[in-house]
């Protein structure tokens, strides 16, 4: 087996230099990738080391990842002495709810865009793209005033509504692209068999779109989970804070509680990253859905 591979490698080396890389080239590639990985990961390691360092000392001349006097006190403190679990719960409750609502809104609207050429469709699509260009700072004050008028402030309703709607444009683009790749013949066939238009939506389109739906759900979730600015507008009482606001409170004006801050960051980042890495394949294909034809 080994010999065969070696032979074919040498064979390929002479026939197509780009396909079979020389050992030297391989080593260079691995080295480059290792350096790139180190650069990618190092700042995260530094956050870990600050969280293990006692005494809220952000700055230290030692570059050791695990400091000599490492302690898990900051983690203990953030979980038991700060309302960290409360922040996580708040975030989780809102994010799950809004991811679902956003998904429902987007999946139905994307279907409309995909299957009908109704008046206002072109401008509608264009409008969805332009919403991405609006600087967030522009919307802060009016959204706040609106929320106060409708009693949405200081309750999760306002924030949940904002989250549900704000990822809709992007989700519609993605889902529409995916729906477009589903041939209409399937729906025609179903209709001949007596299904209604909406029936085909539920029985044919949706089941076939589960990868895209999952991706949209994931996007909605990540955007709501990591958001700071909307939460900052809508939640003005500290006991309602989501985790971005929560750890922001640890960074006081003069005194930053670095130990607690970094410990909280790690505790939040780890599950997020795990989820992200686990689903990254899906996320990527989601972004390219519908743009690579055939």
């Amino acid at each position, binding site marked *: 087996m080994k010999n065969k591979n070696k032979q074919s490698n040498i064979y390929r080396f002479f026939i197509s230099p780009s396909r079979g890389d020389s050992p030297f080239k391989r080593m260079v590639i691995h080295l480059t990738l290792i350096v790139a990985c180190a650069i990618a990961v190092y700042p995260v390691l530094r956050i870990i080391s600050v969280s293990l360092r006692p005494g809220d000392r952000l700055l230290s001349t030692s570059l050791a990842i695990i400091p000599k006097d490492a302690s898990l006190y900051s983690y203990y403190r953030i979980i038991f002495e700060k309302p960290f679990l409360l922040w996580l719960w708040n975030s989780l409750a809102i994010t799950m709810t809004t991811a679902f609502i956003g998904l429902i809104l987007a999946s139905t609207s994307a279907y409309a865009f995909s299957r009908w050429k109704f008046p206002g469709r072109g401008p509608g699509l264009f409008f969805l793209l332009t919403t991405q260009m609006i600087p967030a700072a522009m919307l802060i004050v009016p959204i706040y005033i609106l929320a106060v*008028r409708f009693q949405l402030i200081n309750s999760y309703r306002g924030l949940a509504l904002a989250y549900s709607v704000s990822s809709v444009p992007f989700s519609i683009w993605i889902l529409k692209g995916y729906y477009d790749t589903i041939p209409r013949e399937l729906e025609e066939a179903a209709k001949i068999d007596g299904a209604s238009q909406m029936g085909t939506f539920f029985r044919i389109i949706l089941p076939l779109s589960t990868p895209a739906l999952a991706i949209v759900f994931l996007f909605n979730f990540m955007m709501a989970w990591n958001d700071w600015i909307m939460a900052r507008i809508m939640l003005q009482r*500290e006991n309602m804070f989501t985790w971005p606001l929560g750890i922001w409170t640890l960074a*006081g004006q*003069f005194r930053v509680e670095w130990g607690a801050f970094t410990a909280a960051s790690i505790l939040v980042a780890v599950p997020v990253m795990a989820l992200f890495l686990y689903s990254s394949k899906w996320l990527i294909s989601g972004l390219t859905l519908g743009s690579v034809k055939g």
Partner: protein
Amino acid sequence: MKKFLTVLLVLVMLMGIVSIASAKVNLILWTKEGEEALDWNKSLIEEFMKANPNITIELVKKTNVEVLREDFLTASLAGAAPDILWTVSDHAGPFVAADIVEAVDNLFDLNMYVGSAMDAVKLEGKYWGIPISNGNQLMLLYNKKLIAEAPKDTDELFTVGKKLTTGGNYALVWNQTEPFWLVPWLGGFKGKVFAEDGVTPTLNTPEMIATLKFLHDMKFDAKIVPPECDYDGADTLFKEGKAAMIINGDWSISGYVSVLGDDLGVARIPKVSATGEWPKPYTSGVYFMLTKGISGDKLKAAQDFIGFVSSKEKQLEGVKLLNRLPAVKEALEDPLITENPILKGSADQMVVGTPMPTVLEMRCNWDSMKPEMLAVLADTKSPEDAAKLMQSSAESCIKSLE
């Protein structure tokens, strides 16, 4: 029939009176405090509510003063403002300009409060806040293990400092990124940021240039301070024993006491040898402010609560808990303060301080001084150029406030 109606009327009136008498008044208080000070907030409120069962005060903690300012402005704009604020004096400027707080002249007896504390919130001829504590001033804190006695003037500071700055240790550390640390020295050089009218900036003056030059020399000639140093850096170095002296404010004292204990000394920032003047750090304080339009029962309840916190007993309680100087004249003369070396030192510095201007235009001064001060300390601009730019920035900023 008439009898029945009369009885009904009387009943209704009785109910009305009873409901008014036992009407619950609910106040919303926004505070900028955190940690121990926040605990004091809570205990004050609890005690007050126990004594006044028909008043409830809801405490809302604001993460920091910037958040309080921004949120109060947006909340006022939308008609959802709280009733009382527990905040810093420099908020008076923006809030008075936006006309969202009440003047307190006729609502309280202002004579019981320290004069300089009241002056800090005097704008447009009226007073806009009730002081809770006074101070917030910068002072010279030193580690008695590294330096037995604080230098009396800047010449002494330089000579002693040069000897102390060796091998990674520094004689003096301070937050080199904020102009709050520049203004005491400006006062020492007899300068001021505003002209007599209190709203025209005077930043391009020989006094400012002398101040900038002094800070530059302290760093590049005498070399007694670190090359780059922000608040955290200075704090860390002092706590780790790598700096003999630090210029920091009264809010940091309890942190240093817990690390240095009795080795912590408090003194005035050294006299400027060139002018013979003591530096004049800004004093400000924590104040109650009332939202505009507060009236009736809510106003009365607010007045009661504020009176409660202004009692000598509660003022001294605040001193014990937070190491902050009180704002009520009576409390300031108490032996609790005069016999505590740290508080005595703090009071000693406050005496030569000057109230921080709280007009809206002050923000422009702060924002203009900061980058230029940084440039001079980075040796990328001369003091003369920096002062000129400070002045022009402040002027264009003030113009935009219209």
